[in-house]
């Protein structure tokens, strides 16, 4: 009987064992890898390092008479003309910060919409062109060129996110708004398209600027015209050359300033690092009236002509006087 029970037990044990070997072999047991859900419980919130801590009050610096404490009496009023006649991809609110800085310096901001450009520029000290959707005609390019040659200041602002015809105008002055945008994956203001700029050339525009943040900015060539430069970890999405990426540049004669980002000068971005200082410097540069030497000579010539016309018998001498005056 014992033998029979043993046989029974053997059957009960051996069959499952055989089944186990059939389905599982000698593969051993599954050992799960160590990484589990708890590893990801800590996610550091990226605090934007450049934002002023809340609660810090920054005084507006406006005196009782409405003049800013930053405004110096030496800065004479100027007339700035803002281009709105070329399908500009711009909301007026986006230049409110710049306009406010200009107003603090007593500058008058006017808008060019439909009139004759040449006539309007004759009365202006500076011309501001932001992201023109329409091309400047050859005549207009010539007019703006002459305006700058005669001492007028030109501020060109482009935006990689707003394809425009700014490049055609900039090329007139030897500046190229490069395609694409700048980015930095190593160090940025919470997004790879928000780049830090800490390298500046000695220039009145960059006085007091130690660092700034640009938001989806582009580069401007040639590098030699640059006055602000990106670091070695900043790349262009299109331009292969890494050296000399400049989002802020000027033309050789210093009367043309080109920026390849608009966002940095809008609220609240103007409050980041020294963005506001740069805007203030740009306003100061614009608000300094242009030295329009040729216009003064023309005015003098007209007076001479008028004087000559009032006196009888001296009409033959007028051309000589005119030539002397013009000389």
């Amino acid at each position: 009987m014992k033998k029979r029970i043993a046989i029974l037990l053997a059957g009960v044990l051996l069959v499952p064992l055989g089944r186990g070997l059939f389905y599982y072999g000698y593969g051993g047991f599954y050992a799960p890898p160590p990484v589990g859900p708890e590893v990801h419980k800590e996610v550091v919130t990226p605090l934007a390092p450049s934002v002023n801590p809340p609660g810090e009050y920054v005084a507006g610096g406006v005196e009782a008479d409405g003049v800013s404490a930053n405004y110096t009496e030496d800065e004479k009023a100027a007339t700035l003309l803002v281009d709105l006649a070329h399908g500009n991809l711009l909301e007026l609110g986006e230049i409110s910060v710049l306009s406010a800085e200009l107003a603090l310096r007593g500058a008058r901001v006017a808008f060019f919409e439909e009139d004759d450009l040449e006539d309007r520029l004759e009365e202006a000290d500076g011309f501001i062109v932001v992201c023109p959707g329409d091309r400047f005609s050859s005549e207009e390019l010539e007019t703006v060129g002459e305006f700058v040659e005669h001492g007028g200041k030109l501020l060109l602002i482009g935006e990689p996110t707003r394809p425009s015809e700014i490049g055609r105008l900039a090329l007139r002055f030897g500046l190229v708004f490069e395609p694409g945008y700048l980015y930095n994956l190593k160090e940025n203001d919470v997004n790879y398209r928000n780049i830090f700029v800490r390298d500046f050339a000695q220039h009145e525009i960059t006085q007091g600027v130690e660092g700034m943040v640009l938001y989806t900015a582009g580069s401007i060539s040639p590098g030699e015209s640059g006055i602000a430069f990106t670091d070695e970890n900043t790349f262009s999405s299109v331009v292969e050359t890494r050296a000399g990426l400049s989002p802020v540049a000027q033309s050789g004669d210093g009367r043309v300033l080109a920026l390849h980002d608009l966002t940095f000068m809008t609220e609240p971005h103007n409050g980041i690092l020294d963005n506001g200082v740069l805007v203030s410097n740009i306003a100061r540069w614009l608000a300094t009236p242009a030295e329009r030497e040729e216009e003064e000579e023309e005015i003098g010539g007209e007076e001479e002509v008028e004087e000559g016309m009032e006196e009888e018998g001296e009409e033959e001498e007028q051309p000589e006087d005119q030539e002397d005056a013009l000389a």
Partner: protein
Amino acid sequence: MSKLRVLRRLLCRCVRSVPFFVVAGLALGWLVGALGIPRPYIATVDLSGVIEQEQGVDLQTTLSALRGNRNVKAVLLEVDSPGGLAVTTQQVYFDLLKLRREKPVVALIGAEGASGAYHIAVACNYIYAQQASQVGSIGAWVVLPEREELDEESITTGPFKATGGSRRDAVAELEMVRREFVSAVVQNRKDRLRLSEEELSRAEIYMGVEALEYGLIDEIGTRSDAIVKAAGLAGIRNYGVVKWYAGSARAGIPSIEALRARTGLMPTYYYLHFESE
């Protein structure tokens, strides 16, 4: 009566005989085996199309059921998706990590295992892809919320009640979402990975052969390779393969305009790969 007696005698002789005990033992053993050692299975789960909320819920339910099913010894996750909602992706990812604690999961990337789909795939023990599979796009999208328009009839009690935060906050949160994804890849791929975090953050799409080179996947292989691998990790053989979840119908990838249309005042984050227009 005599017949009954004959039968009774026959039965007694059989019961006392050795062959009877052999047969009984085998029968009992088979019963015990069938109940105690069921046939192992590999369950296949489809992850296809854009990962929306509904599919996410279905997947989570499936993964939970798989965790509790003792007959399923391994899981094959068949991936063919460009990703989808970030929050849904993260939920499925964490559930997959829980499943992986108990049984091996092998991913097989078909035509595309991009963005959120790849985020989920890295939770698996092993990743297969084809040579021309599209793998990667490690990054996130957000359509920034619309600017709030003031209305005299609708009033909130705080400046961000309607929008949840400023547009700048949305960009910072996008960065958090990106970091979570990169962290998931780095933590799970570990020494197999041959790309830095910065390189991962470029959010490039790699072909299968490139992905293998960079350690984003483990092997180029077919479905049968993946099944054999899953079986090997689970230590099973002579197993069955059962389709556990067929996935939802493959919907078209929404365009940026469609995503914008869905975005109201609150930002929505996506781990999604699609071509910019």
